[in-house]
């Protein structure tokens, strides 16, 4: 496998695996997410939130992936980048790490947004009881 073939294969494989992991994460969290957002008083908002969740995770993975750049001071041109196999491997590792980090941060951020949803739901429910 030439360096250029390796670059193309690793680049597209990394993003495909990242998106698959994001989708699998959304699927794994889906049941709990449904339980948390399924309430008759805020059915519309619940639907919006449920639709947004997988998209949010996929966008986070894409942000992580694109946050890594191949160009730096020692690798200013495409030819210099392709010539250095070790550099290509390092960049793929960086992309994988960034995607995992961004995905974890996105789940945390979403957890914070869920606090607002649950708080609004609790206010509505306790108001209705009074």
């Amino acid at each position, binding site marked *: 496998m030439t360096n250029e073939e390796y670059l193309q294969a690793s680049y597209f494989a990394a993003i495909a695996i990242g998106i698959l992991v994001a989708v699998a994460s959304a699927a794994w969290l889906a049941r709990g997410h449904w339980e948390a957002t399924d309430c008759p008083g805020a059915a519309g908002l619940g639907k919006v939130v449920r639709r947004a969740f997988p998209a949010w995770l996929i966008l986070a993975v894409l942000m992580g992936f694109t946050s890594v750049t191949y160009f730096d001071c020692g690798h200013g041109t495409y030819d210099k980048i392709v010539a250095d196999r070790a550099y290509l491997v390092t960049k793929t590792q960086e992309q*994988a790490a960034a995607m995992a980090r961004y995905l974890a941060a996105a789940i945390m951020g979403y957890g914070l947004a869920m606090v607002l949803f649950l708080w609004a739901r609790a206010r509505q429910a306790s108001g209705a009881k009074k």
Partner: protein
Amino acid sequence: MTGLLAWIGLVVMAVGFSVGMALVMRRPMRGLLTANTYLAPAANFYVRAFVLVVLLASVAVVASTGLPCEKQAENTMTAVWWIAGHLQPLCLSIAGFLMAFVLLLTILFAALGRYRDQ
């Protein structure tokens, strides 16, 4: 061969740390999240999200770590040092996300813990 074993050792330790952390935190988290009926529907989501976040925190460190070069794994002790050198970012990553999650749960409890079931 020692290099590959060292890398596998690091992966096993990373997964072990994450699973251990999830096992330690799961029960008290469930206890907190079933304090009232306003928190209870979100219990599954937050517990699963925590497991995922801790796993991803360790995957991020392992993914950025390649196999050690020959000198770094020429004998058992150098391989152990190589693993130890990578445990610091691993622990930092897990600890950072753990603290962030505890902060998140504190905000959740501050917002919803005051509601009482009637």
